[in-house]
């Protein structure tokens, strides 16, 4: 969904509910809470220290200007300092105004966030629509008992409201307030329950039930040894080094064209006189050490990010908390989970481990690596033994049949393998030709090895893709090295489509795809190519019918 979707649409649909609910907020429930929730009309403000955090953010966002300023100051060049100030002072003043004018409250089942001095912007988020309330704490935040709070709804890529920063008590109060409002509107039968099925008198009883369910239930704790294994198996190290190199080239040198990657390594460590065998050994050993270091970097990243990981269930919400330095805590309502995906990478499989990703409707297509999205979606469960996967999926989504041998798996079209092999052959030919033309005949011959590798890959790939329509939704498996199994659910399927290219038509194949909200972060979008065209059409029609029935 695009980020510019006007929030009014959501509000419109919800106004009726809010009006019918506002008298139903149970007083008992309010009293039961440990921290007093936000009162109905009182405006709440950010924590005064917000200004400091906004300032550090500003400097982070404008690194170049900051560098200029420091550089200028160091050289005694006032022009640069002036430029930097010219840039910083107005933005700083705006930030100050902004942070002092932000206020929020919960009224009539809606979270109202107001900001701005001259241009006042009021944002109304129906509490029912709030997907997650996430929290991020850096070291400084933790020392001061503060947190950055993000309120997310289904719309768009960005959090609906970012409250930077609140005290922990204040955050708890906000969470409780939202939770209570959600419960009361849920009890009032706003959307889930058919009209008239629930007399108003039952509201308080229903709430009490929710209250009893509420105690936190710890579902999973990840010991540091698993994290170390997962970090070792991951390619995080490569990504981190890539990021650092990018940063280095961008800022330190400014001209990437001048640098040859070979220059970064000093080849003189190999003595001139040594034999070929020694040389090869030294290079291989060196590479091995580099690889090992990269892997260790991955281990470090995993431990930093997921230290003390705990997944808890509170009523109908899941709560994740983890992090060594920057602490993240995210709340994910169970009914907002759109998609569950189990990933088993090559090395992870050797260690009998896996990771679980989920998709919730908020934060679609946001590829930036910010702490909360990273934790709550891309790494919902960063690592888990294969043997516990079924159990945890049953917790995430009760009542689904996980006996996968019992599914009616539909493989790709009969001739898909031939088609894959043909593609592999064409790609190999191109590779060999390119190697021959650019690097000479020796490497051209060496490139012939691409043929068996790519053909083997093509065969494995065509065998790995499987699709099943079950009674709860669609299950999709694929992957040669990293094996992925994903579950989508009929009531979360927004649309289905069937596509056929001219090439597909020649091979009597088609592509079947299923669209869910915020698809993407789990990196396993259900878009199945090379299915038999008739099968794909039947499945497409069945999926739509079954989705419509939910």
């Amino acid at each position: 969904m695009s980020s510019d979707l006007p929030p009014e649409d959501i509000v419109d649909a919800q106004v009726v509910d809010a009006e019918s609910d506002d008298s139903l907020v149970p007083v008992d429930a309010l009293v039961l809470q440990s921290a007093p929730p936000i009162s109905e009309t009182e405006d709440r403000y950010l924590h005064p220290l917000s200004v400091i955090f906004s300032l550090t953010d500003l400097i982070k966002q404008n690194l170049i200007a900051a560098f200029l300023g420091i550089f200028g100051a160091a050289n005694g060049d006032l022009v640069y300092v002036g430029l930097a100030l010219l840039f910083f002072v107005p933005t700083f003043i705006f930030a100050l105004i902004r942070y002092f004018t932000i206020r929020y409250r919960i009224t009539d089942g809606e979270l109202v966030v107001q900001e701005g001095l001259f241009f006042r912007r009021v944002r109304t988020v129906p509490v029912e629509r709030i997907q997650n309330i996430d929290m991020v704490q850096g070291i400084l935040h933790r020392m001061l008992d503060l947190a950055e709070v993000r309120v997310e709804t289904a719309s768009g890529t960005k959090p609906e409201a970012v409250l930077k920063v609140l005290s922990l008590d204040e955050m708890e109060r906000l969470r409780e307030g939202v939770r209570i409002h959600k419960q009361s509107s849920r009890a009032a039968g706003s959307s889930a329950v058919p009209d008239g099925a629930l007399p108003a008198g039952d509201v308080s009883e229903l709430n009490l039930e929710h209250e009893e369910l509420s105690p936190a239930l710890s579902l999973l704790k990840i010991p540091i040894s698993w994290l170390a294994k997962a970090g070792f198996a991951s390619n995080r190290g490569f990504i981190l080094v890539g990021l650092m190199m990018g940063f280095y080239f961008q800022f330190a040198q400014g001209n990437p064209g001048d640098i040859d990657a070979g220059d970064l390594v000093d080849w003189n460590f190999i003595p001139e006189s040594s034999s070929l065998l020694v040389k090869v050994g030294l290079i291989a050993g060196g590479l091995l050490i580099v690889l090992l270091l990269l892997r260790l970097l991955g281990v470090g990243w995993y431990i930093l990010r997921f230290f003390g990981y705990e997944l808890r269930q509170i009523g109908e919400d899941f709560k994740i908390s983890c992090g060594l330095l920057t602490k993240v805590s995210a709340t994910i309502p169970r009914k907002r989970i759109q998609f569950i995906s189990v990933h088993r990478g090559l090395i992870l499989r050797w260690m009998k481990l896996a990771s679980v990703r989920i998709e919730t409707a908020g934060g679609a297509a946001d590829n930036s690596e910010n702490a909360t999205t990273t934790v709550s979606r891309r790494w919902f469960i960063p690592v888990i033994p294969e043997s516990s996967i079924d159990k945890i999926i049953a917790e995430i989504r009760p009542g689904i049949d996980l006996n996968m041998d019992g599914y009616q798996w539909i493989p790709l079209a009969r001739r898909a393998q031939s088609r894959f092999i043909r593609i592999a052959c064409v790609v190999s030919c191109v590779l060999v030709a390119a190697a021959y033309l650019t690097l000479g005949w020796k490497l051209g011959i060496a490139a012939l090895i691409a043929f068996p590798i790519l053909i083997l890959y093509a065969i494995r790939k065509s065998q790995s893709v499987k699709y099943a329509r079950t009674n709860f939704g669609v299950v999709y498996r694929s992957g040669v090295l990293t094996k992925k199994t994903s579950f989508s659910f009929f009531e979360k399927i927004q649309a289905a489509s069937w596509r056929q290219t001219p090439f597909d038509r020649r091979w009597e194949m088609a592509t079947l795809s299923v669209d869910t909200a915020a698809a993407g972060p789990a990196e396993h979008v259900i878009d199945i190519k090379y299915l038999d065209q008739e099968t794909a059409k039947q499945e497409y029609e069945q999926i739509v019918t079954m989705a419509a029935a939910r």
Partner: protein
Amino acid sequence: MTETPIEWRELDPASVTANRIVNCIAFAVVLVASVIGAVIAIAFGIPAPWHWLLPLILVFANLTLLWWAFFWPSIEHRHMRWSAGPVGVEIKKGVFWKHRIAIPWARVQHADVSQGPLARQFSIGNLTIHTAGTKHASIDIEGLNHAVALELRDEVIRQRKAGDVV
């Protein structure tokens, strides 16, 4: 899908004419540009094979474009069908690259009808249906009769379930 056969409907034939007009405007721009380009190129003198090859290419390109401007809208129109069945809205389209997409009634978030100045002359309109999805966050049915578009929009709004779908 269900026992009752789906009633596939065509777009308004007027949309073909409208599309032809739009295409012809595009064609006219290209034609003028190529004539000017050819004249300038020949006036300033260009190397040997090009003084006859360039006009030939331009003539060929323009003829193709003219064919496209005139015939493509009707070909596209023949391959486009939509239906508002018991399950939801379904579209099938595409001449070479075929595409079918279906949205269950209950998944529609909202729908709107838009109409450009030319479309108003032909009383046709575009219906855009929004879902909470990602890739198909919105689908367009372009070239409906305006009255039909409005009717379909009302139907879509009436059929969708109030409440949460994500």
